[in-house]
Every structure is written in structure tokens, then in C-alpha cells.
């Protein structure tokens, strides 16, 4: 029986004019359902590419990607959209909230296209922003904005929550709060959460830590006893 998510010899080659850049040079790994995975690596190692391909925002050049028994590496653009729509939740470094929408509306933006969304107010409450629901993003702090982004991703009730440097633009404390939120979500909702970071300190909190380097997997470590966020210092 295969894993929940499986990457098999995934390659990604970018054609930049006459130069081919191999972003991923054959990547293999698997992720189980409900796992909190940290993908770590230095800038340009290919971790974002992995996330993008996994999240259906990009396609691989070759190799197979199977998510929950479906081979998404063969998906058309439209199938990928549908995949993103129902199965994936994204959290970005720069939140990417729609400036012109309130907190609640930003969450609504995601839920209105889902089949089984979570309750919006509950989700907002869960991220601790009940009293800011009617505020616009510009009225919120970075951490709050990131929480909105998480709420937006969660409200979709996705199979996978993909986070690309979620704390990159945040201060230490706020970052921690966000990580906590992600970890709690993972534990409470048994959603597979994949966090990308260049901060190796964070690897301690992952169930699985995948280290990437130069487009290849450097190591995959299973962390039997992941630390809770509070205990991590970075």
C-alpha cells in the first residue's frame, strides 16, 4: 500500500532561453496522511518547486506524483485547478490576502468555491480573529494577516495544507504563534501540513523532515518525537 502522497523521480526543468535549469533532478519521497512535514533547504534548493508541483500550481517535467491515490502529475490545467480547489490549502510568506476584502470576506473567497467548507466564523474564531472579522487586511498586523491566510486555507477543508515560508515575514513571536496554529491544525484536524522553510531550527517540530539540496533530496528523517512549537528556539 502506497503512501498518501508519493513523489517518484520527479524532475522539473525550467527552460530559460537557451539554458535549461534543472530545479528538481529526480525527487522521491512520500508523506502520510496527517503528517506535519517540514521541507528544509537553502534558497534555490528546489523546495518551493516541490511545493508548487505538489500544490498543483506547477507541473513536473517528468516523474509521478500521486496524492490520495490520484496521479496528479498527469492532470490537465483544469484538473489541476479542481485539485487546488478542493484538496489544497496554501499559506504564503506574504499572506496574499485580497486587500479589498475584509477578513471574513477573504475567507469567504475560498469557501464559496468549495464543496464542504468549514464554518467561516468558527474558522476565524479558531485562528483567534473573531473580533477582527470585519477589518481589512491593511488594518491588521502581519501575524494577523497570516492567520487570516491560514483561516482561508483551512476553511476550504483541504486534504493538504501547504505553507511556503509562513513565518518568513514575521517576527519571532508571531512566527511561533503561526507555527503553533499550523501544528495544532495538523493535530486536531489530521490534515497533512507541509511547511517549507530555510530555517533548520524548525525541523524539530516536523513529523517528517525532508531536506533538499540542489534539486535533490538530501535526507528524509522521521522525527519520532516532534517538539511542540513552544519548545523550539530559533
Amino acid at each position, binding site marked *: 500500500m502506497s503512501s498518501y502522497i508519493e513523489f517518484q523521480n520527479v524532475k522539473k526543468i525550467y527552460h530559460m532561453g537557451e539554458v535549461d535549469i534543472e530545479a528538481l533532478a529526480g525527487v522521491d519521497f512520500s508523506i502520510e496522511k496527517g503528517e506535519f512535514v517540514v521541507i528544509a533547504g537553502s534558497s534555490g534548493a528546489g523546495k*518551493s518547486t516541490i511545493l*508548487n508541483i505538489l*500544490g498543483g*500550481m*506547477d507541473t513536473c517535467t517528468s516523474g509521478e506524483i500521486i496524492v490520495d491515490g490520484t496521479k496528479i502529475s498527469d492532470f490537465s*490545467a*483544469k484538473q489541476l*485547478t*479542481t*485539485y*487546488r*480547489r*478542493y484538496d*489544497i490549502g*496554501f499559506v*504564503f*510568506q*506574504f499572506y*496574499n*490576502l*485580497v*486587500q*479589498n*476584502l*475584509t477578513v471574513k*470576506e477573504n475567507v*469567504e*473567497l*475560498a469557501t*464559496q*468555491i468549495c464543496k464542504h467548507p468549514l464554518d467561516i466564523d468558527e474558522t476565524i474564531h479558531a485562528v483567534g480573529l473573531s473580533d477582527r472579522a470585519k477589518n*481589512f*487586511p*491593511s*488594518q491588521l498586523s502581519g501575524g494577523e494577516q497570516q492567520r487570516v491566510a491560514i483561516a*482561508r486555507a483551512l476553511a*476550504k477543508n483541504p486534504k493538504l495544507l501547504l505553507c511556503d515560508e509562513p513565518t518568513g515575514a514575521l517576527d519571532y513571536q508571531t512566527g511561533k504563534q503561526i507555527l503553533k496554529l499550523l501544528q495544532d491544525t495538523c493535530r486536531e484536524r489530521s490534515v497533512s501540513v507541509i511547511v517549507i522553510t530555510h530555517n533548520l531550527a524548525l525541523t524539530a517540530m516536523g513529523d517528517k523532515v525532508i531536506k533538499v539540496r540542489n534539486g535533490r533530496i538530501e535526507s528524509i528523517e522521521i522525527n519520532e518525537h516532534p517538539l511542540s512549537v513552544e519548545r523550539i528556539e530559533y
Partner: protein
Amino acid sequence: MGASLLKDTIREIKGSFGRFFSIMMIVAIGVAFYAGVKASIPDMKHTADQYFDDYHLMDIRLLSTYGFNAQDVEAISQVDGIEGVYATNTVDTLANIDMTQMVLKVHALPDVQKDTDVNYINRPKLVTGRLPHKSGECVIEQGEEMHQSGLSIGDTIRLKSGTDTSLDETLKTTEYTVVGTVHTPYYLSYEKGSSGIGSGKINYFIMVPQSDFIVDYFSEIHVTIQGAREKNSYQDDYFDIIDPVKQALETMAKQREDIRFETIKQEANDTLTDKRKEYEDGKRTFETKIRNHETKLKQAYTELIQHENELKTKQQETFTVIQDAKDQLSKGREQLENGKREYALGWQAFQAGKDTFLSQLSQVDEQLSTLQTHLEKMEETLASIKQSMEDPNMDDETHLQLQAQYDECMENKQTLKQQISILTSQKEQMEKEWNAQETKLKETKQQLESEETKLNTHTQTLEERERIAHQEFAKAKSELDKGKREYEQGVIEFQNAKKDGQEDLDIGKEKLEQAEKDIQALKKPEWFVLDRKSHYSYMDYGSVADRMEGIAKVFPLFFFLVAALVCLTTMTRMVDEQRNTIGTLKALGYGKNAIAFKFIAYALIASLFGSVLGCSLGMVVFPTVIFNGWNIMYTLPPISFVAQPMLAFGASAIVSLITVLAAYFAVYKELKETPALLMRPKAPKAGKIIILERMGFLWKHLSFTQKVTARNLFRYKKRFFMTVIGISGCTALLVAGFGIQDSIALVVDKQYGDIFKYDLSLNVDQDATTQEKNAVLNNMRQDARIKDVMGITMDVGTVKIADEEQSVTIVSPSDTQRFQTFVSLHQRSNQEEMALNIQGALISEKLAMNASLSKGDMITFEDAEGKIHQVKINGVIENYVGHYIYVSPETYKQLFGIRQSDTTMIALMNDTSEKTERALGNDLMKMEHVTSISFYRSLADSFSDMISSLSFIVIVLVISAGLLAFVVLYNLTNVNVSERLREIATIKVLGFYDREVAEYVYRENMILTMIGALCGLVLGIGLHRLIMSLAEMENIMFGRNIDLSSFVYSFIITLGFALLVNLVMYRKLKKIPMVESLKSIE
């Protein structure tokens, strides 16, 4: 400011070509419109001038109140600066073409047309066929679809005079064969001015050989001037050449006027003298004749009297004589009776005397016998004596005794014998006397008898004579009476003749006096030296070209505004994107200007490219389109362009300035900020609660994406305005384009449907009697194809408006009540029917508008005879084609002094199919005194043709509108997409399908488009008004209406453009890379 900055700019252009393109395009459109419309003015004028030059249009046209003679022509050609002189004639004639009476202006061409001949002026441009070579040949103007003459080569035209003067006095022949069709620079349009004959409007011109004019003067002289052709006659330097020659001509004209005046005066005086002499002779002859006649009459009278007297005398005499004779006769008869009585007495006495006589006679006889016996005894004695004596023996004494006895016996015997003789003689005497007495008595009796016979004869004769005399006298008397009557007749005749003769003489005298007065009042001949400023076609076309100035003012303003907005939004967006770079550059120590340079250069380069594109396209396309548009009504050869570098440069400069300003304005704000601030991402424009949200009930009903759209709309005001203005401009152009068609279509529908309800109008001879006119009317009334008919008067006149004479039709119906069935006189505003009052007139709207008159004012007009009339305006009525003054018969009488008469019949038909019309027309034309027939359906058709040819304007406007919409929407979408790249990427990541993403973005576009389109509908009304007022001719009022369908079409087409842009942008949306968009910091 180094090369690296320029390089950066060029790379920037390459990198954001869509943005660059949109600025370039809007600049191109703006410049194309501005330079194009502006250039069309000189281009039109240049083309016209070229046409004038190529066909040697006269520079100066001379007219004279007395015409010109050969000396005049000679004198003109002597004036300095004159190049060519062509003395010619024209005459207005009538001809029936296709049942309609047309006014044909006859112009002349030189008999031999040589291109090298400088005196060959106003050359026609041959379209088909050839020019006339000999008498009886003509060319006719080439009609276009709008204006078909219905004549083709080979057809014959029969010209008729429209005045009392026969055409034979002017033209050698009145029958012309069409040998070709032409255009002429002399008439650029179908408007050839008014005429004193026929309908009052010149329908066509024809050109015939000059030698066909047989008048001994020239009615006009055309002159070209040296060096004038090199100049554009619509420019001042042309007039710098013309004016001195014109002045010279004017000076010369003064002299010629004097010379001519003297000649004319002399001629007139000579004629007058001749006439006077003629009159005097006539008078003398008349008087002599009268005198003779009178004398003769007198003589006749005297003779008559004499005759009468003579007759009387003679009668008297005759009857006196007869009476005398009668008297004598009766006297004679008396005498006769007396004689008879006397005779009877004599006879009695004679009878009584007879016994006495017889006794006396017997006594005598006894005596005698006694005596005889005595004698015998004596004898015997004697004889015895003698015997005794004889006895010789006897003695002597016995002898002597015997002797003595013898002697005694002898003596006794003698005595006895004597006694017997006495007695015998006595007896004889007695018998004689008796017999004499008896004879006398017998004679007397005879005499008496003859006398009686004579008397009787005389009486008879006299009676006969008397009878004859009576008869003769009666005859003589009757003859005399006859003579008298004849004389009296003669007197009457004489008096009449005298009276008539006197009258003729009086008339002659009056004429003479009038002629004398005329000579005294003889005006100096006046020469009119008219340059092209007095030439209708030249001025008309010039003003048409100048009218484009109005459009050139409005359109570009609008496009420049849109260009500014497009540039502003684009540059703002670009500046936003380049914040970081700006910050970096600033941090590196570049000055504000150096940094601004990139943006300004960007805008400038876009503008320059756009300008070049706009100028090169616009200055060809727009002049061509505008020129060809006007050429529906004008007959100029194809457009020839004139280089207008200043305009191109100016337009480019203006638009470049605008874009550069917009760019500077966009970058200015950012430049003020510190590099540190600039290096950090710009705080995204904060979301705000919009008004709509405060209206909870409404907000709640909006779907989520609708809310998003609503917020966005209110967020970007610049874009909002740019789009609304741009799109409204697009819609406005469409509305105007469709509206033009509607308005012109309305002219047909309203004029020939709502206002003129009649289907045909028929003109009868002006000179026809009332009876004859009624006959025509009755004939029409009885025709089954005609529903109703009535007679009206239609007179032509002119109204002077701003020094320009505009022709007007004065209409007076015979029956104002029935007239309403045929023509609806109503106000446009409330459609209220207006009555023709006894006093005052109703005038057509355009006339009122042109003359700035309204209800209650007085309108002054001139009739065909040149008399001025004034009438009060009772109301202004809806009318589209032509100027009309409607008056009641009463007012007509008051105005003109003569009664309204039915010279035009207007009729409603039961069936207006072309077939029926043709048949009816043919039948009606056969009636006497019918001069022309017009069917209004055909008029409506020709108008419709004009509209269809106007559709190209609509095409141009639709294309312009499309371009505008495209540029604006493309720009809007482009800016929106690039600015909201993250947002779009986000929703894409969230799993929005492409269609949903597009909807998310486009909803905004569509709403803006709709708002713009709605604004455009309103704006379109204004634009439409402007264009209509510019395109309007002086005697046609176009409607100001736009059909609902046009609004709908415009709206739909605008949305269609928006959809098209969206479709183009859809690909771009699809291609937005999620990963990159989300990763980068703005």
C-alpha cells in the same frame, strides 16, 4: 542621465509592450482624429482649388445691368494682369423631363475647345460622351444617385422659354441632343441657385456652343488672372493677386459704365426721337385723316341737305306745274264748255240763219236771173243793133244813133254785167260767207271736239305725271333718308374712329412720356466685378470645409482627455511597479529628473510613435472619409492631399505634452518619497467600506463576487473615469452615427409622411384660365386612382438672411379646412395642429430658425417679381425640407393684391405603387395646361438613397468607437491585471477556474463599460446634435431624434467591444503564473 537609463527605458518598453501599445494607440487615435479632421479642411480646400485650377475656373466674373458689348470685352482684356477673358451668355429655360418641368440653366462653351486656349475658362470636366461641337448639341451635368436627371447620351431636350420672350430670340435652336455628361467647377454642388422661372430653382445645367446664342450682347464675362492659379484661392495670398486686378477692373468699369451710359442714353434718345417723330407723324396723319373725314362728312351733309332742299323745291315745282296744268286744264275745260255752249248757240243761230240765207240766196238768184234775162235782152238788142249797124247802108245818123244806142246798150250791158258780177260775187260772197259760217261752225265743233280730246289726254297725262312724280319723290325721299342714315352712321363711325385714334395717340403719348421719363431715370449701367468670394460654390464649399472646424474642436478634445487618462493610469501603474527601482535609483544618487526621465521618455516615445502612426493614418483616412462624405452632395474630383507638416507637428506636440505631463504627474508623487520608503513595498491601497455597504438591504443581496466588484469600482477612481469617459465616448460615437441615419430618415418619414400627406403634386400653366384650371381639377377628381385632390397656389420668393437670399415657397390653399387633409401644419413640440388664420402666416421651422424669427414677429420676403412683402408670423410649424410660408387665401389677397388661384394641384392617391404612378402620370400629362407632375414617393426614395450613402459615416464612427473602446478597455484590463496580479494569482491558487477568474476580473470591466455606455448614450445625444447642426444645410432641417433602437444598438455594440477586449485579455489572464506572482514583493 546615462545611456543605461535609456537602455532601461527601451527594455521597459519591450517588457511591457501592451502598456506601451495602449498609450501609443490612444495617442494615435487622438492624433488621427485631431490631425485628420483638421487636415481635412485644407485638404478639401486644396482639392477644390486644384479642381478650380485644372478646369480654369474664373477668378473674376463680371456682370452688368446692361450686358456687355465687344468694346467692353476688349477693354477688359486690356487690363493689366488679365490672363484670359471669356464673354458668354446664360439663359434659364424650362424643359420637361420625365413628366416634370425642370429649370435648365443653359451655359455656353466655346465652339472649339482648346486646352491651350487661355480664354477657355470654366472648363467642364467630361464624365461621359464628348463635348458639343455643333449647334444643337449639348452636355448635361452628370447626376449622381441622389440627383439623376433621367437623361442619357442621345436623348433630346426641348427647351421652352419661361418668360414672355420667345427663346428663338436668344438661341439658334431649342432642341438639343445630349452628347455627354460633365461636372463643372462652376457648380460644385447640386445647388445651382434660384431662377425667376418655373419652380424657382435651377434643377440642371446644360452647356451648348457659344454660337448658339444669337443675342448681340454678352450677359457675363469670365476672367482669369495671371499667376492666380499658382495660389490656393482659399488663402489670402490668392487675393493679394486678385485684388489689384479687381480694383483695376473696377476702375475701368467706371469708365466703361460712363461710356456705355452715354451710348445707351444716345441710343435711347435716338430711339425716343424716332419714336416721337413716329408719334408726331402718326398724330398728323391722324389729324389729317380726321379732318378729311370730317370735311367729307360735312360735304356729305351739305349735299344731303341740298339734295333734300332740291327735292323739296322740285317737288314743289313739279306739283305747282301739275297744279297749274290742272288749273289750265280745268280752265280749258271751262273754255271748252263755254265754246261748246257758244257753238251750240252759233249752231242754233246758223240753223236759224239758214232760211234767211236761203231766201236771201233765192232773192239774189232771182235778181240774178232777172239781170241775166236783162242782159240777154240787151245782148239781143245789142246783137240786133250790131247787126243793124253792120248794115253798111245805114246812115250815119242812124248809125250814130244806133251807135249811140249801141253804146248805151253796151253801157247798160256793162252795167248789167257789172250788176250780175256784183250780185254773183254777192251771192258767192253770201254763199262763201255761209259756207264759211258753216265751215266755221263745223270747224268750231271739230275744234271743240279736238279740244276736248286734247283736254282729256292732257288730264290723263297729267294724272300719270302726278303719279310718277309722287313715285319718284317717294323714291327720292327714301334715298335721301338712306343717305341721311348713312351719314349718321358715318358720323358715329367717325366719332368712334376718332376716339380710338385719339386713345391710341394718347397711349402713344403716354408711352412717349414714360420713355422720356425712363430716359431721365435711366440708370447708369452698373458693372459688378465679382471675385470668388461672390461665387456660391466657392464660398459654399469653403464654409463646409470650415464647418469641420467645429468637429475638429470637439472630437480631439475628447480623445486627448481620454489619452491623458489612459496615459495617467498606465504610467501610475508603471510607477507603482517601478517603485523599487525608483527607490534604488534614488538611493544610488540619481536626481529626480533623471529618474522621471524614464517614465517621461516612455510616454514620449509612445506618443511619438503614436503620433507618427496617427498622423500618417489619420491625415489620409479622415480627410478622405470627410471629403467623400461631403462629396455625396458635391461633385469634386477625388481628394488631393496637401502636406501639412505644421499640423502634424502641432498635433504630435500637443499629444506628447499631454502624455508627458500625465507621466510626470504619475511619477511626481513617488519622487518625493525617500528611497527607504520606496524600497519597501507600497502599502496596498486600503480596502474601504463603500457607501453601498451602508445600505445593508442592498449589500446583503449582492453575491460575494459582486461585493468584490463593487469595492473595486470605488477604489480606483482614475480608472473609473478613464473607462467611463472612454467608453461613453465610444457609445456616443455610435449613438451619433446611428442617430445621423435616424434623423435623416426622419426627414423623409416626417416630411413626406406626416407633414406632406399628399402623394403627388401637379402644376398647371400659370396663364391657364380659371375654367381651364378647374377642368384639370375636375378631371383629377374623377380619376378613380385619386382619392382626393385640391388646388393651391405655390409661389416662389426669397427671404434675405444674413445677406444671403434663401428661396422660400409661399403656399396658399383654396380651402384652409380641407388643406389639413393634405398638409399637416403643426408645431413640432406639441404636435398641435395650427389653423391658417385670415390674418398672418405660418412659417416653417428652419426658416424661423435661420432668420431668428418667432411667433408675433414680422417676416419680410421678396416675391418673384421682386416686390417686398411683410406678414405677421402666427406660428412656426414643423417642416424639414425647404422653407415655407403658408397663408390663408385672405392673407394672400392682402399681400399680393390678387386672388389665390389653383396653379398647383395636390392629390392623395389610393395606391402609390410605381406602376400606378407611372400610368397616372402619363394620363395626367396628357391633359392640357399641365406642365409638370411630381410624385412624392420618388422624392422619398431619393432621400433614402442619400441616407444609405451616409452609412459610411456610420462605419467610420463605429470603427473609431471600436478603436476607442478597445484601447480604453485594453488599458483598463491591462492595468487591472498587472496591478492585481497577486490577487488574481491568489484566487487562481485558491482553485478558481479560468472562467471564474475572468468573471472576477471582468465583472468590473463590464460594469464600468455599462456605466460608460449609459453616460455615452447621453453624451451621444449631444454629439449627434453637434454633428447634425454642422452637417445641416440651410434649407433642410434634420431631425434631432435618435431612435430607441439606435440607443440599444449602440449599447450592445459597446458591450460587444468590451467582450472582444475581454476575450483578447482572457489569454493573458490564463497565462498569469501563480508561483512567480505570489512570490515577488510588489
